[in-house]
């Protein structure tokens, strides 16, 4: 599987995991009915890709305007293998995008950043639009 694309719904974010180019993206709001069902396949695909591929660079862009606790747990599960891959030498960048002025999401990003020693973590404010 080289690419997973899922359109956003009211309760789940848009997903674009393009493993071939190493660009992964989550954008929207995340409080799905069943977080395990939504994030499980993504996590599985990510683990599979990291295990099978050459250590090409990976950028994971997270632009969530709102997420619940289950989604936060799922994010940690996605971040963990990426940090492990970075520790083994793969260039990994996490880009945490938040709407300028959204303190809550910015602070959540800072919290997540603390878990990364090897992967690069960027906090990016997006302009008002």
């Amino acid at each position, binding site marked *: 599987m080289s690419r997973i694309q899922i359109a956003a719904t009211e309760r789940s974010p848009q997903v674009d995991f393009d493993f071939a180019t190493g660009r992964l993206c989550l954008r929207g*709001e995340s*409080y799905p009915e069943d*977080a395990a069902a939504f994030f499980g396949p993504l996590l599985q695909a990510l683990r599979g890709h990291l295990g099978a591929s050459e250590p090409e660079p990976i950028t994971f862009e997270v632009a969530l305007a*709102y997420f*619940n*606790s*289950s989604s936060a*747990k799922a994010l940690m599960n996605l971040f963990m293998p990426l940090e492990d891959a970075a520790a083994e030498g793969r260039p990994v960048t996490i880009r945490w995008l938040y709407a300028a002025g959204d303190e809550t999401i910015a602070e959540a990003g800072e919290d997540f950043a603390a878990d990364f020693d090897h992967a690069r973590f960027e906090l990016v404010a997006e302009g008002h639009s």
Partner: protein
Amino acid sequence: MPQRSATGLKHAVEDNFSLFDAEEAIIGRTEVMLSRLSEVAEGVQELAGAYRRGTREQRRLVRMSDRMQLELQRVNQRMAEQQRELQALNEALSGEIEHRTRLEAELRRLADTDHLTGALTRRRLLEIGERIWASGPACLLMLDLDHFKHINDGHGHAAGDAALVIFASVCQTSLRPCDAFGRMGGEEFAAFLPETDAAAGRAVAETLRRAAAEAAVPLEMGSLSISVSVGLAASRAGETLAAALRRADAALYAAKAGGRNRVWCPETDGA
């Protein structure tokens, strides 16, 4: 020396020496190790149980906070929606207010403006005149087109209307923006000139009279000349506007009686 029984001797020997003491020591050590291992096993079991309980509690907490966050998000969305509706209502309302304000201004302009000549209406002119009269020295001119009835009767009402329009336009061109010029009714007009004394007021009146005399009202064939008589009243301390209007009317009557096409100003022309 105490006597040792055969059994006693045997025991003593076994206490001090055994052919299997190495094996027995190992057995002893394994027993100790086994008891420690079962202690460790119990500890690991305890740990696993605690971890299981912890995970179960964590799951429950995440479920609870998910539910609360869902509710919170629903409330936020409802509020955002209400905000949008309110905004739309506000915009509609301010559009309506703007529309009404424009309408009101238009209605006021219609009420304040004589539709034929564009001069102020009598009501509006007197409103402004009151203010001018109360605020310091000023002049009031009463202007009346001469022989207007002859124009109407001889050349038709369209010619009469044209004469009124041209006369009003001549006056409005000559007067200052701070002056108030209006139609009192029929062929009679009035002007309030703020901060103007009798001599200056008379000069203005004379300018208007001459301009009217020089104006030509176009007819279907040829054109018609007009003239105006002007009565002037300069303000007096403490005098009401009504009294001033009466004086200006009297001066206008004097100008008419004097032969028309003239200005009469009692203050400068002698009582």
